[in-house]
């Protein structure tokens, strides 16, 4: 009764106290949601830099490979499934491709077949990294479409077979502008290379999960299962991506504890001020015969309520702010920014805890002070 009466009587004081705590919780919740969004954004932006792993036939002439941009040799398409089944190999996406450079309408054109199914690790559904081309249709790169005056819906004859243009692609400023994309099986049939591929492209996380030589690790793992394959990693992209990720992780790891500490000190200071302002009341209760433990209980219960109120308000305020401003900052992952409900549980536990711990010092000091001293201190 005393507790609730006091809270109601000093409701503005209680509200402002819990608002103070809410400010601290808001800061933490906002920061965590925005950081999570930032990490997602970084991951997706770095992922969009391209594949970081290329698996090509071991017999490839590397000089020719780097000059032409693809391997003219082939390997069995079933190698993709071998990778999928190999649990010791970690990857995010796998795509089998077949490449062939030809002369078409007076131009050097790269024909690229893409497997219709992008393979992801078992049990994990991921967003598409590249497009799937319908059978009997092609996607035409920007430069070829422009030079040959090709439009969506046109029919093209390539190496004697007819294909409908499903789409002409936007300019990329890369070799992709001189590609014509096929469904993998269509291109295999066209080139009479059924069941064969030139390359497996993979976005692989090995560089962060493995030791100093991820490429060496992967090569060793593949040696027995894919005897005719060679693994190439684009180290520049991989290193840049890893640095960016680590930077974000470090940022989070350093800032979060600092923010938590500030929030803890802030909530603690508020709880402490409240108790210190009420030391005379402790004296009155002691003079009336209330036991120290009972008075301590009353003050701790108030601190818990203050913490809970602050945590609730802070969670919803922080989440609202993050949901409102997050999508403006992180445009790529805007739709993936969502409330983190586990933060509510954490806030509901930690804010009352900090409030009680901070109250404990002045309450215990006051309760075990002689009541006469508290009454004389007014």
């Amino acid at each position, binding site marked *: 009764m005393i507790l609730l009466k006091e809270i109601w009587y000093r409701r503005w004081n209680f509200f402002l106290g819990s608002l103070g705590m809410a400010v601290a919780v808001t800061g933490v919740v906002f920061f965590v949601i925005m950081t999570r969004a930032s990490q997602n954004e970084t991951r997706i932006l770095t992922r969009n830099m391209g594949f970081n792993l290329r698996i090509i036939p071991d017999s490839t002439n590397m000089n020719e490979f780097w000059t032409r941009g693809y391997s003219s040799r082939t390997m069995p398409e079933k190698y993709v499934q071998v990778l999928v089944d190999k649990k010791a190999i970690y990857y995010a996406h796998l795509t089998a491709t077949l490449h062939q450079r030809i002369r078409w309408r007076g131009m050097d054109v790269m024909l690229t077949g893409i497997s219709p199914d992008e393979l992801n690790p078992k049990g994990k559904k991921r967003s598409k990294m590249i497009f799937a081309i319908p059978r009997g249709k092609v996607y035409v790169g920007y430069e070829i479409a422009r030079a040959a005056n090709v439009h969506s819906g046109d029919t093209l004859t390539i190496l004697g077979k007819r294909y409908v243009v499903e789409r002409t692609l936007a300019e990329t400023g890369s070799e992709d502008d001189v590609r014509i994309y096929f469904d993998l099986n269509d291109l295999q049939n066209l080139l009479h290379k059924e069941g064969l591929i030139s390359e497996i492209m993979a976005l692989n996380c090995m560089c962060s999960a493995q030791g100093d030589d991820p490429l060496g690790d992967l090569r060793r793992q593949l040696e027995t299962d894919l005897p005719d394959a060679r693994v190439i990693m684009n180290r520049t992209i991989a290193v840049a991506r890893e640095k960016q990720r680590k930077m974000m992780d470090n940022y989070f790891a350093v800032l979060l504890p600092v923010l938590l500490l500030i929030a803890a000190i802030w909530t603690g200071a508020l709880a402490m001020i409240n108790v210190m302002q009420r030391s005379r009341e402790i004296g009155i209760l002691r003079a009336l015969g209330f036991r*120290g433990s009972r008075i301590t209980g009353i003050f701790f219960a108030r601190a818990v309520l203050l913490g809970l109120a602050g945590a609730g308000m802070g969670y919803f305020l922080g989440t609202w702010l993050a949901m409102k401003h997050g999508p403006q900052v992180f445009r790529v992952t805007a739709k993936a920014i969502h409330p983190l409900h586990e933060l509510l549980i954490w806030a509901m536990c930690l804010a009352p805890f900090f409030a009680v711990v901070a109250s404990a010092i002045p309450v215990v000091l006051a309760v075990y002070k002689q009541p006469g001293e508290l009454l004389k201190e007014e």
Partner: protein
Amino acid sequence: MKMIRTEGLTKVFRRGKHSVTALAGVGLEIGEGEFVLIKGPSGSGKSTLLFLLGGLLLPTAGKVWISGHDLFQMNDRERSRFRGEHIGFVFQSYHLLPYLSVKENILLANKAVARKDGREELRILLQRLGLEEREDHLPGALSAGEKQRVALARALLRHPKLILADEPTGNLDPAHAGVVIRLLHTYQQEGGTVVMVSHDDHADRVAERTILMEKGRIVQ
């Protein structure tokens, strides 16, 4: 039977490197049912003596017996309970909890020692002290005289053997001061013991004995 007995009661307050002797070896006996007035100049140790008699301060040296119980032989918990059961306090600045109504402030005395709710005693006290119309009011809505009557009701609720009053009329006008002194006098005439620090003329008239203090000692 002695209600209060003290022996060599000494209290030294320490503030950093400095120390102040508020009470220097006070020996005192007060009988059951007495009305004793303590007087003396400011800083003479009157309030300190009263707080020590109620166990609100710990003595630097000496002993206090209340109804034969050595107050400082008890641990803090026992002393709190003893205080709640047997001693009532009235302070100059009332010390009411501002968020509790008149009724709740008075009943707080019972809550401290987990007694039954005491609603019947409360009704009688409110009537006797002229507070029936005020029972649901908060202290902030009361006059000084009413606040002190509430504080007195809180002290009387448990029918304590002893009431210690520290300048209970210090903030009151003469008319209200007279009312408070009369109420304390009535309590004493019904068998209670009153020890009061006061400079009030009304108190002189009802007190059976006056103790004069100076520099932490009883001089008369």
